[in-house]
């Protein structure tokens, strides 16, 4: 009901190879999150899977069937577009009802599902509006609503929560996880939000310039990034990467320490530096420590409010257990 296999799938726009040949296997019922820098090809990959874009090479199998030349409608996938792509001439209600209308769902059932979705999405008051009269986040929610009222063989979400506030985002996150648990449908989810990626995914796919850098469970990626790119990409704030002598000390070309794995002390420690900018989030504080001689700045995350000021001298001590080592080509050394 929702196994998706990409075999040597590649995509070129004219001369530009956006996605070099790539293999990927998504199990039925899996929740897969695509992450990667902006412009790395996440949306393109979704669109290839959806059938909205021709593959330049390779095959796409859905449930073992070659679907490479199947029409999008036939593939039976639901998609939330990054740019929403709402039907501007239809009310929110009609927008959400459209896929059901296409699937000839009975009217009662349609209404039931619309009401349920609208409630979950906080859209109940806006059902009769046109997209043009909605706020950005409301539009995004309509796009989500349109996808979730269906029972497709897989969902494709392209940054579906990017324009929602934190509270709503948490709510929607749970809602989608809930949906996933209930329907056990395959979901492919693109996000830039670390929390979403880490909390929702069964499996995260890290993309970089169209290539897959690593595929694995969230903790796997966090704990054992396969290479420096993944290490730097997963986790926020970003992992501190050092090369040169410090790394050589550990027998590696590059080493990485996450900001949360560095202890700070005003008395003593391994590396000495000066506090630069510090960002106070309330719950945490990010310290950017300068003049350590190791890297331009070292990011350190410490709890709550920290009583350090710009210019203070501090000592940093990495948690030796949590140091990641990478070789010349960036690959992990164990």
């Amino acid at each position, binding site marked *: 009901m929702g196994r998706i296999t990409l075999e040597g799938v590649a995509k070129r726009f004219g001369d530009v190879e956006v996605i070099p040949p790539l293999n990927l296997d998504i199990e039925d019922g899996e929740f897969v999150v695509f992450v990667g820098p902006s412009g790395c090809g996440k949306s393109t990959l979704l669109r290839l899977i959806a*059938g909205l874009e*021709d593959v330049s090479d390779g095959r796409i199998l859905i449930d073992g069937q070659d679907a490479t*030349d199947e*029409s999008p409608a036939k593939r039976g996938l639901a998609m939330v577009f990054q740019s929403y792509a709402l039907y501007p001439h239809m009310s929110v209600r009609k927008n959400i009802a459209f896929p059901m209308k296409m699937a000839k769902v009975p009217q009662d059932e349609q209404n039931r599902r619309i009401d349920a979705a609208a409630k979950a999405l906080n859209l109940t008051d806006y059902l009769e509006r046109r997209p043009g009269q909605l706020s950005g986040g409301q539009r995004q929610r309509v796009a989500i609503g349109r996808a979730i009222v269906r029972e497709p063989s897989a969902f494709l979400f392209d940054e579906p929560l990017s324009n929602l506030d934190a509270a709503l985002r948490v709510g929607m996150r749970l809602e989608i996880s809930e949906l996933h648990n209930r329907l056990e449908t395959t979901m492919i989810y693109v996000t830039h939000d670390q929390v979403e990626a880490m909390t929702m995914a069964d499996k995260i796919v890290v993309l970089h310039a169209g290539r897959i850098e690593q595929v694995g469970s969230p903790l796997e990626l966090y704990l054992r990034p396969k290479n420096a790119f993944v290490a730097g990409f997963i986790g926020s704030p970003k992992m501190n990467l050092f090369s040169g002598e410090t790394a050589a000390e550990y027998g590696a070309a590059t080493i990485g320490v996450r900001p949360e794995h560095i202890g700070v002390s005003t008395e003593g420690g391994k590396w000495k530096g000066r506090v630069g900018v510090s960002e106070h989030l309330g719950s945490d504080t990010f310290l950017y420590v300068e003049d350590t001689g190791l890297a331009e700045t070292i990011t350190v995350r410490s709890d709550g409010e920290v009583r350090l000021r710009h210019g203070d001298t501090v000592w940093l001590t990495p948690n030796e257990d949590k140091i990641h080592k990478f070789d010349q080509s960036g690959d992990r050394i164990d």
Partner: protein
Amino acid sequence: MATRQTASLARLMRAPAIILLLIWMLIPLGMTLYYSFLNYNLLNPANTSWAGWFNYQYFYTDPAFFEAIWNTIVLVMGVLLITVCGGIAIAMLIDKPIFGQGIVRILVISPFFVMPPVAALIWKNMIMHPSYGVFADIAKFFGASPVDWFATYPLLSIIIIVAWQWLPFATLILLTSLQSLDGEQMEAAEMDGAPAISRFIYLTLPHMARAITVVVLIQTIFLLGIYAEILVTTNGGPGYASTNLTFLIYRAARLNFDIGGAAAGGIIAVILANFVAIFLMRAVGKNLD
């Protein structure tokens, strides 16, 4: 967007139109081509014979031929200039929220509702006539002597009449195109400090580029074929001052009933029109993307 799957579907969707037009083109074109090599006068069908290239030679050695081509170009260009510029201005004007917008729009597009010969008659006799036309009355009111439009400026007169008829077409297409100009882009430009003129030049015009191109191309095709207005007003005169290519063909086909000659003229016209079209396509075709 364009997938193989949609592409094959697209082929299917295009097919009926293409096939119909192919038939519609090939049969008459084929027959016309055939006739163009015949000495065939409708009034003397018994004397039909093979003519070779004679009809062509005869047509282009017509003393009016080159003047007719020139007039055709002037006519087309003149009308295009007026209708496109005027159309843009009027489309923008009636796109604004004004009182009675609906009525204004309908008034503005109404000239298109008038059949060309009738329009020509109205203009010739009620508007431009030097003795009892409205222009003459206006001129007299200001103490000027009335202009004898069709004798003094025959081609210009026809350009005015035709432009009046086609202005609504341009206006309507451009208005419709304006409708899809995203308001937020305009707002962004306003935020970027662009004054109205710049917004027009850098946003509205490029947005309308495709529509303008279509207006130009479609109108060119129609304008190349103008003859009813000429027939009613000046009959191609004085001299050949208002004779265009189509009128020349008309003369062959409908006055001389010279089917062969008209066919040859038709073929020549098609070739010339295609030249114009290719030229236009080169010039403005990229706007269609």
